[in-house]
């Protein structure tokens, strides 16, 4: 019974949800989705936080596979990797599967229970 959540919520989801749970970080990611590739400087200009903070957020996003960096001269360009969002989209169907099996166990219990 308890193993089921392990299957539906592997570490990958944990990393992805945590990466996108921070509003500033999510805003950076959304901007890359919306406007395409950006330099750290360009992102900092609109992020409302310092460049080191933006770099740190980008590092977390990169670790989650949500962004890719490309070095060109002294500049680093970041772009969104939409494929990394697939597990998030799978989440609804996986959680629905989790609840279906909980319903099965609940029905089994109801059959065993006294009136």
């Amino acid at each position, binding site marked *: *019974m308890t193993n089921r959540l392990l299957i539906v*919520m592997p570490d990958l989801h944990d990393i992805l949800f945590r990466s996108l749970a921070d*509003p500033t970080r999510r805003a950076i990611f959304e901007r890359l989705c919306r406007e395409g590739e950006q330099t750290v400087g360009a992102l900092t200009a609109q992020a409302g936080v310092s460049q080191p903070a933006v770099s740190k957020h980008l590092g977390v996003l990169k670790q989650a596979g949500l962004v890719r960096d490309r070095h060109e001269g002294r500049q680093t360009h970041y772009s969104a990797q939409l494929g990394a969002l697939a597990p998030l989209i799978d989440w609804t169907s996986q959680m629905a599967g989790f609840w279906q099996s*909980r*319903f099965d*166990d609940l029905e089994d219990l*109801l059959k065993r*229970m006294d009136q």
Partner: protein
Amino acid sequence: MNEMSTEMLSIVVEREVPFSPEKIWRALTQPHLIEEWLMKNDFKPVVGHGFNLRADWGAVDCQVLAVEWNKTLSYTWAAYGLESVVTWTLTPTPTGTHLRMEQSGFRPDQQQYYEGAKGGWQRFFANLEQVLARTD
């Protein structure tokens, strides 16, 4: 049945169950019975009560939001960085009960329950859907 609407992330599971709402209510609200079909817990059917659902892999943090005896039960469900609300609805039928479970992400009218956790998931998923629509 599940859907990703522009408003929120939402999962709905519904089932016709050949048992009375009163009996199902017991299974949904008594800790030793909850443990049988969900997880170990310290649940109490009291609005505002904070509880955990525990398994060997970790825990889900919950707080009771609404209790309407034999009809509705609602609690927050926070795990893996995603805040959501689980709502059970029991409707009597001629042969038993229509049991409905909805798990949904943040809604603006529920933000009062999440101090300091104004996650903006709703906006994020709305944006995500737009982004994905464009990348086909």
